[in-house]
Structure formats: C-alpha cells, structure tokens
C-alpha cells in the first residue's frame, strides 16, 4: 500500500508530490518536503561512506520504521524518486525503475511543454502514476 510519492531533483526542489492516503493535508507541505530532502541527502552520504568500494550514485535503497517504509531511487542525473509505503512492503527498486523509465520518460520528458527544474503539472502523468501505484498491493 503506497502512502505518498515525491520526486526531487539534485538541488532539492520538489518537482512532484502525490498523496494516496486521503488523510488531511499538512498546513505547509514545502517545509516537510525540505525536511525529507535534507534527511535523504544525509542518509545517502552516510551510506556512501560505509560502502566498501567508491560509487558514483549512493547505494542507499530504503529504510523501515514502525509505521512506514521509505523507498528511494536515485538516477545518474540526480533525480530522486521517493515512495512512502506500508512497512511490510518488499523492495520496490524495480517498480521505481519502471516508473522512471516508462511513466516519467513518456509523460514528462517527452512532453514539449515541460520545463526542466520546474514542478510537474501534467495531469496525464499524475493519472498514470496514480493508476500504477494503486496496483502495487505488496
């Protein structure tokens, strides 16, 4: 069960946010987004420090708490796909890769009206992404 979905670029701007739980939205989502990005940045550099060999893209994939699990995919271009799910969910790297290669590339990159580094406003992208995330039961 997916709770939330974020896309950040390498600088820290939140390009996209989707809430699937239908809970009451936060008063100030920008603050939370900045916190999430800062935390992920620290986590990624810590994981890089601990890895046995030098890597270009951080090997950090997920973390679990009692109430949620966070999955992340960092592409070589610096894009971060972040997904908050139920804690029992299995590793979702393959589905994040699918979202990047199929849904994001088709509906965002190939959209001539999309301006890089700005928020993603495409309605079709949101629709397709929501459809896909609802199918991720486990």
């Amino acid at each position, binding site marked *: 069960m997916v*709770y939330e979905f974020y896309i950040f670029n390498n600088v820290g701007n939140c390009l996209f946010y989707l809430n699937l739980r239908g809970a009451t939205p936060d008063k100030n989502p920008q603050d939370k987004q900045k*916190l999430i990005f*800062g*935390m992920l940045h620290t986590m990624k550099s810590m*994981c890089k420090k601990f890895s046995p060999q030098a890597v270009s893209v951080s090997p*950090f994939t997920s*973390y679990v*708490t009692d*109430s949620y699990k966070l999955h992340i995919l960092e592409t070589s271009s610096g894009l971060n796909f972040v997904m908050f799910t139920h804690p029992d969910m299995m590793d979702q790297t393959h589905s994040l890769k699918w979202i990047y290669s199929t849904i994001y590339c088709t509906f965002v990159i190939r959209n001539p009206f999309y301006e890089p580094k700005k928020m993603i406003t495409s309605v079709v992208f949101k629709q397709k992404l929501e459809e896909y995330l609802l199918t991720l039961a486990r």
Partner: protein
Amino acid sequence: MHYNFFIVNKIGLLIYERKFPGCAQLDSSDLIRFGATLSALHLLSAVVTPSGLKKSGLKIISSKFFKLCCFQSPTGVKFCLVSDSNTTDMEKLCKKAYQYYSDYVLKNPFYELDQQIRFEGFDREIEKLFAIKQ
C-alpha cells in the same frame, strides 16, 4: 557477516564501537560524526512520517552493500549493528546487546552515565554474541 557495532547515547555521542573483519575503513572523526548523524536521522524519520500515522524513528536502513539496524531503548540509547544485506534477525541481536549493556555497564558502580564504555566484561560478551551468529 557483521561489519560494525555501535552504541550511541541519547545526545548523539558515540559511547562504544566495535569493528569486525571486512568493515569499511573509518577514522575516529568519521565515527563521531556517525553517532551525531544517526541520532539526527532517527529524529527526522519520525518527523517526516506521513500525516495520520504514528510517529516512529527508523529501525533498519537498507543499501546495496549493507544493512544497518538501529534499536532504540526506552531511555534513548541506540544500539546500531551494520551487517551485510542478507542478515536477518538483527533486532534480536541488538536487544541482546542491550541486555548485556544493562548487566555489564549500567550495573558497574564505576560507570558514569553517558561516558565511553571501556569494560573487558562487556567487550568479551559482545565478541561472543557477534562471533557465534556469523
């Protein structure tokens, strides 16, 4: 296979660390930074919980090369174990280490709270705990 074991107190200071063969090369300043970073991450992960869910700190961090399990005691002391990605039941090991901490460290009359842990008895038990499970 285990790589490292750390104990971080509630204010973020590293009070115990143990290296096992195969671990990444980390110098002392890295380790001090690690203690503070982990405390901060634990707090932040509770803050960014999706709205409506109970706030809770992180338990396990997974990466391609290692898995880090962080068990927080009710007093705020964090027991962190860094192992390879296939290890399971890391939380049980951390809980056992917590038991040894309360037996060999807290019950020791010469131990000052939140200070570095330098006791042979505790070292011996930790060595035994993580060597058997390898």
